[in-house]
């Protein structure tokens, strides 16, 4: 194999530019997934007829179809149906956010279910307003428990962003491909792209595991 260190190093500036986009996608997608997932979990628990079933349907639909197809639906199908067009980047963020919200909703649900029933009963006995019980009693107990699980979903989201190459988001992998097309050397840029992924997700995984261990100790 003729590995060229020079080609590898020369591919880095573009790859790092792509990495920045990848990180942005992941962070914005995570924020959307965290907020939307929380809203879904709380609304579903409220057991409002029709809304509850609609949320169930949404979650099942999103979980049973590939992310790639959801990306295509948002980027190609939605504009042709509604005339509402988002950039590739925004489509990517929305697709990641919606997709992972269906998973984070389940994570939150588990965290909420783990809050002892006695907490709800004490809140009723004290006549606390329902919204305040969520805000001040239930969620402050439920969310810290599920932070490691949410962190893990952010890491897997990070590793799935290259999918967005298919709609032309300028992420790491897109840049690796671009470098390859320009220099006719594909091994180096793709390898370096892989190394960059590793350099981000490995420390992130270690961080999440540490968080998990600290939770286990304090619980």
């Amino acid at each position, binding site marked *: 194999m003729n590995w060229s260190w020079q080609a590898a190093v020369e591919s880095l500036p573009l790859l790092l530019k792509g990495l920045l986009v990848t990180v942005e996608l992941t962070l914005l997608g995570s924020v959307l997934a965290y907020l939307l997932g929380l809203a879904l979990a709380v609304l579903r628990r409220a057991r409002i007829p029709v809304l509850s079933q609609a949320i169930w349907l949404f979650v099942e639909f999103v979980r049973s179809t590939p992310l790639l197809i959801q990306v295509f639906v948002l980027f190609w199908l939605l504009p042709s149906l509604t005339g509402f067009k988002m950039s590739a980047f925004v489509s990517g963020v929305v697709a990641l956010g919606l997709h992972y919200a269906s998973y984070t909703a389940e994570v939150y649900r588990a965290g909420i279910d783990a809050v*002892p029933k006695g907490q709800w*009963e004490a809140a*009723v*006995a004290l006549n606390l*307003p329902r919204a*305040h019980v969520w805000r001040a*009693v239930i969620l402050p*107990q439920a969310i810290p428990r599920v932070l490691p699980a949410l962190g893990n979903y952010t890491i897997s989201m990070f590793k799935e962003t290259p999918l967005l190459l298919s709609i032309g988001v300028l992420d790491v992998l897109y840049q690796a491909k671009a470098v390859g097309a320009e220099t006719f050397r594909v091994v180096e840029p793709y390898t370096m792209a892989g190394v960059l992924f590793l350099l981000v997700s490995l420390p992130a995984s270690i961080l999440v595991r540490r968080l998990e261990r600290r939770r286990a100790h304090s619980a």
Partner: protein
Amino acid sequence: MPTVPDPLPPDPHAMIRFSGVVKRFGDNVVLDHLDFTVAPGEFVSLIGPSGSGKTTILRLLMTLEKVDGGTIEVCGDYLSHVRKGDRLGRADEKHLRAMRRRIGMVFQQFNLFPNMNVLRNITEAPVRSLGLAADEAEARALDLLDMVGLSDKAQAHPAQLSGGQQQRVAIARALAMRPDVLLLDEVTSALDPELVADVLRVLRDIATSTDITILCVTHEMQFAQDVSDRVMMFDHGRVLEDAVPEKLFSEPGHERTRRFLRAVIDRE
């Protein structure tokens, strides 16, 4: 929930009145057409074997469970019903919230909020539910902490307290709402034996120094005998015996009561 035809008129002199209350869990009839009244300021202990429906009575009063039949009145108002013409229908959440203001409850497992310190556990509901000013709620909380002997624990978190201390905070928390009725659900059952005395001392204080109506489910027979105005013995969802403690503990009228008391006192 079927409406109740031809309800009896509410009794304005009773603090609590159960009329033909039925409660089932599946096929299990926990309360079987239960009738009793409690006068304002009374301290009533509910005793009996487990599964006899004592705790269910408190949970119904706190609106944590719904009746399957009959009516409950508190201060002359229906707890979970509203009059609709000459019939009774199920009350809405607004009515339940208004009724709950009159009732406080202390649980076997304390159920303090672990994410708040002791002071905030006590001030949270007066501020959020009664609309008290924060400093007023705080002053009230500090008075109550003093009464339960935990003035120095205002800033502590529940996890840093013993079970007995947590339960005393829970009592202060319930009293901070100034309820007319206080429900005590086996409040010493989850405590180590050496921590029980402090909690009982606080409850004795409340019983003698306030005019709160208290319903107390307990297995502490000596305590029940000392502080109760009345003791009700339950068996299979019915009141087997209802008497002043002097009578019920020294000359119970039923063989079942006698056996129960012997079993409980032997255990102690």
